[in-house]
């Protein structure tokens, strides 16, 4: 086993060597511009991107023409939301999203809010799920878009996407879903999930960074987006710019592998995840899983170790790469807004660790991680005045703290 161990697969994934081998020739040999119409260099490049379009479309139940290539999910989310806001400005000015969305969605919405659009940020329950009745009630005749993620990047909670899509359809509102964490990991189908626009990216599915896609429905309804990048009119005019052929080839190859291996891989990762959870919960007291366990990605575990601060825990397990919702690990010095939205209390947000398992995770690594986490949590609890007080029977929620 090699240290450090990588368990941060929601942040990014290691490229699958098979994907890498597929990409390799597209740097040195097949280097043409896919938009060059009059020589074989261009034709070969276009053929490669067409193949990738089909590989991506096949994974998500779309058609190749509905795939628009972008630089990644942040751009996809920007294009989807701003593109709809501009294109459908005459129809309405209201967008509905949720408080637990990724910043690429939230900040895009905030940007539009400053420009006069009205945004509704739906709350989530303790399980991390949006309430469908609240969604229904939030839709007005001015609503043009609902944007709700497929699965959450921190807590792995899977939203009731098909139902959300059905409600949007009933009301004649477009539905965009940021599906970066779900695509390739669990079955995603834009038809049965009633999705009109969907963001995905290569580097979360063992493909390259810097290449993503936006699914844009062509029929029933035909979705139009105002381009956010002007230029040569590539990608049906929705996203100008020379295609990143190696990236696109890699994204396509990554999608094909996921499609082929997802069923088996998700069972294996769920087994490892449940094993990790079982060990942590059996060997330590006062450990809490954040968000729904039932509606959750198979490779995600987000867990709080009460009375232990997340960054100090990360320091102790520095040969295991994971993330924490602790304020000390974020640039803003605020604890995770996603965990806060669950209403779990800031103290548990500070104590959280996100484990993201992946294709290359082994049982041996999970055992090592479990051993190490248990050992460090015990050590830090010996150091924790909160743990001591809790053991003495003090109700910490009733203590008046000298906040600073």
């Amino acid at each position: 086993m090699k240290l450090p161990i990588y368990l941060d697969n929601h942040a990014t994934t290691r490229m699958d060597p098979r994907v890498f081998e597929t990409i390799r020739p597209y740097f040195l040999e097949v280097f043409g511009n896919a938009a060059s119409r009059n020589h074989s260099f261009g034709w070969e490049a276009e053929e490669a991107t067409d193949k990738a379009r089909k590989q991506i479309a096949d994974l998500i139940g779309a058609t190749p023409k509905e795939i628009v290539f972008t630089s990644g999910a942040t751009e996809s989310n920007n294009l989807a939301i701003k593109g709809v806001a501009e294109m459908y400005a005459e129809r309405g000015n209201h967008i509905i999203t949720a408080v637990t969305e990724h910043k690429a969605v939230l900040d895009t919405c905030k940007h539009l809010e400053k420009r006069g659009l009205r945004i509704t940020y739906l709350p989530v329950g303790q399980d991390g799920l949006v309430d469908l009745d609240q969604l229904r009630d939030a839709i007005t005749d001015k609503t043009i878009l609902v944007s709700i993620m497929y699965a959450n990047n921190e807590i792995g909670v899977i939203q009731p996407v098909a139902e959300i899509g059905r409600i949007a359809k009933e009301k004649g509102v477009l539905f965009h879903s940021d599906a970066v964490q779900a695509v390739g990991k669990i079955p995603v189908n834009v038809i049965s999930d009633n999705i009109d626009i969907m963001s995905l990216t290569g580097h979360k599915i063992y493909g390259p960074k810097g290449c993503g896609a936006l699914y844009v429905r062509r029929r029933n309804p035909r979705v139009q987006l105002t381009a956010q990048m002007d230029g040569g009119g590539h990608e049906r005019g929705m996203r100008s710019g020379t295609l990143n052929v190696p990236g696109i080839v890699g994204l396509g190859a990554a999608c094909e592998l996921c499609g082929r291996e997802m069923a088996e891989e998700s069972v294996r990762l769920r087994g490892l995840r449940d094993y990790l959870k079982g060990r942590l919960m059996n060997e330590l007291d006062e450990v809490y899983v954040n968000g729904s366990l039932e509606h959750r990605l198979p490779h995600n575990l987000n867990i709080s170790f009460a009375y232990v601060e997340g960054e100090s825990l990360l320091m102790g397990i520095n040969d295991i790469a994971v993330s924490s919702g602790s304020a000390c690990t974020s640039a803003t010095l605020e604890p995770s807004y996603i965990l806060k939205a669950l209403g779990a209390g800031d103290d548990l947000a500070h104590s959280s660790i996100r484990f993201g398992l992946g294709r290359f995770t082994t049982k041996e690594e999970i055992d090592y991680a479990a051993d190490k986490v248990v050992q460090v949590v015990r050590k830090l609890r010996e150091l924790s005045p909160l743990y001591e007080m809790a053991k003495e029977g003090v109700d910490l929620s009733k203590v008046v703290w000298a906040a600073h």
Partner: protein
Amino acid sequence: MAYSNKVLDHYNHPRNVGSLDKADRNVGTGMVGAPECGDVMKLQVKVDPETGVIEDAKFKTFGCGSAIASSSLATEWLRGKTVDQALEIKNTDIVNELSLPPVKIHCSVLAEDAIKAAISDYKKKQQSAVPAETALV
């Protein structure tokens, strides 16, 4: 974030972890911070009432590595100092000793606050616990 060697040393080998008897009139306890802010420090001193010298200091901290190191260092510095000398410890001394980056300065502030709170608790106890013979007068 890269930690200084001194922070790592205190994190890996914290000095003077533990608790002193809160009820002891020669023990001062300071508890500062709040769980929802991500750090709580408990710092205790045991003072020789004759000499005013701190003979023991203990801490427990819920917080990041820099918070643990700041309080661990504080207990090291407190031992052997008089109560008045202890009050002269400034957060900037801790920042310099541990090479804390700007985002971690609040950890040193918290440690200074914890020292002040512990000493003030000790002083309060000394004043209120009036010796028996004077009480009779």
